[in-house]
């Protein structure tokens, strides 16, 4: 089932084309990453599907055509920064969200526990750290037990510990079978939590696909030992390696089909060389992202 469908969604600010004819289909249960450099149109796209930015043309449909207000009540969303009343406590702020979403206020304690803010529920929002504010945002988004979550840069401005906390939280939520739409320019974050992704550049969709299709191990290896030139000379004799080259303090090479890293390790050992590193190279989303962006320049 299509949770969200975008048809030619476009936003123009004067001469600036922020989003251009964007078509997307997001299905139930997907953790969908929207990637792109700053200013690529990620937040504008989310703003349009959340009805806070008016599209210049095109349309979108939630849940196969549900009314936008009803749909938004069923969606938990955070757009950029956490937005709450600073003079109110977490509990009081969530009471407003619960009232708008027409859900029971009894859920408030439950979500505050889920995001680890129950102990601080009586403290004013303005006294919270950025990490706590982000967690409260996620708590508010989870309040109506929504089937869909939209998170825009949820780890922005957080320290490494905060990033790890939010990432774990997102992974836990994804495991519950919820559909998550995550906009981010932090590729590592998207790689770790998303199943599907698209890349936006200057408002255009330049790529769409599965995260698993472009990540994972490659046939390339990185290898090094104490005597790099001896290692290179030795490995040149191995028929299972090609494209052998020096890359800084190590060598890189491609494994031929049928050759494994274990074969290389054994070969070097038999030649009297002790390897200090033998590592298969993983393809990362970051590499692919940069390649795609470069190709679309």
């Amino acid at each position, binding site marked *: 089932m299509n949770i969200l469908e975008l048809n030619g969604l476009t936003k123009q600010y004067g001469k600036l084309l922020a989003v251009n004819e964007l078509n997307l289909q997001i299905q139930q249960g997907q953790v969908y990453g929207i990637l792109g450099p700053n200013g690529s149109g990620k937040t504008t796209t989310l703003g349009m599907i*959340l*009805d*806070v930015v008016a599209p210049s043309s095109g349309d979108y449909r939630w849940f196969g055509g549900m009314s936008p*207000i*009803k749909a*938004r009540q069923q969606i938990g969303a955070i*757009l950029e920064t956490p937005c709450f*009343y600073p003079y109110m406590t977490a509990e009081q702020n969530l*009471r407003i969200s619960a009232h*708008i979403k027409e859900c029971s206020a009894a859920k408030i304690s439950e979500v505050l526990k889920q995001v680890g803010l129950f102990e601080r529920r009586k403290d004013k929002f303005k006294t919270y750290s950025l990490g706590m504010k982000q967690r409260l945002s996620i708590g508010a988004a989870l309040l109506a037990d929504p089937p869909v979550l939209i998170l825009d840069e949820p780890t922005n401005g957080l320290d490494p510990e905060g990033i790890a906390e939010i990432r774990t939280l997102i992974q836990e939520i994804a495991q519950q079978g919820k559909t998550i739409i995550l906009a981010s320019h932090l590729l590592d974050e998207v790689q770790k939590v998303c199943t599907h992704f698209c890349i936006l550049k200057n408002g255009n969709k330049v790529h769409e696909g599965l995260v698993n299709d472009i990540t994972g191990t490659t046939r390339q290896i990185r290898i090094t030992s104490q005597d790099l030139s001896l290692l290179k000379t030795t490995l040149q004799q191995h028929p299972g390696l090609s494209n052998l080259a020096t890359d800084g303090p190590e060598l890189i090479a491609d494994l031929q089909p049928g050759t494994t890293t274990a074969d290389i390790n054994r070969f070097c050992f038999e030649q009297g060389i002790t390897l200090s590193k033998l590592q298969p190279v993983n393809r990362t989303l970051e590499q692919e992202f940069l390649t795609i962006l470069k190709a679309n320049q």
Partner: protein
Amino acid sequence: MIKSLKLEWLKVKYHPLIWILFGMYLLALTILCFGGTFFLEWLKYEGEDFHGLDPTLLPIYDFPDIWQNVTSLASLLRVFPAFIVIISVTNDITTQTLRQNVIDGISKTQYLTSKIALIVSLSVLSTAFIGLAVLINGKLYAHPASHQLMIEGATFLVAYAFDALVYCCLAFLLALLIKKPGFLIMALALYTIWFEPIAAAILRNHPDLRDTAWVVLPDYFPVSALNGLIQLPFGRYLFHEITDFVPVKQLIITTAWLLSYLSGIIFLLTRRDLK
């Protein structure tokens, strides 16, 4: 409407500044409504007289005059509910909670309804307060009057409620436009208390403008139009002719202003992106 009112209540319930302003407003209304006899005593102490008449004998609390006396003065305090509206609206904009409210599932129309609910509540509460104050003061100080005479001037109470409603809608529109509460409160207060009355006085009284259309122009100004709804009636105690009714012309002008404010609010809310 009930949902919108509750939403607004949840927002203002914990806002300390709004309650301070509301308290100041009620205090000012109390002083104004109940301070008449003390003021007249003070005038007498200062040796003032009204054509040889003891000021304390002026029937300011007699029905039906009391309605216009109290409401005309109370309408000068209209800035207080307007400040509350400004704080409430700019708070939603500066904290981006208006945007979050929309994301969470209200429409911009529902947001408009919630603010109108706040404005109507402020207007109704202050009108009820004044109505009660008039009845108490009338009971305490007025000469006996028939029930018909007592309710004769109550149209001024309705005009007062309308005055508060229109002025608060102006505040709502300005808050959406300017978004800076401190600046806006100062600017609106200065405009209402100083700038427009001075401009109106100049246009009405400048010798070069006599017998020209400029003299009636202030009747159409936003604040002067509201002041014209319930005109200050105290000239009657100096045997001057006064307007002791709500002029239809002023009612039409203020209604036109109200409609233009609401159109502006709807235009800004629906056309502007919530960034």
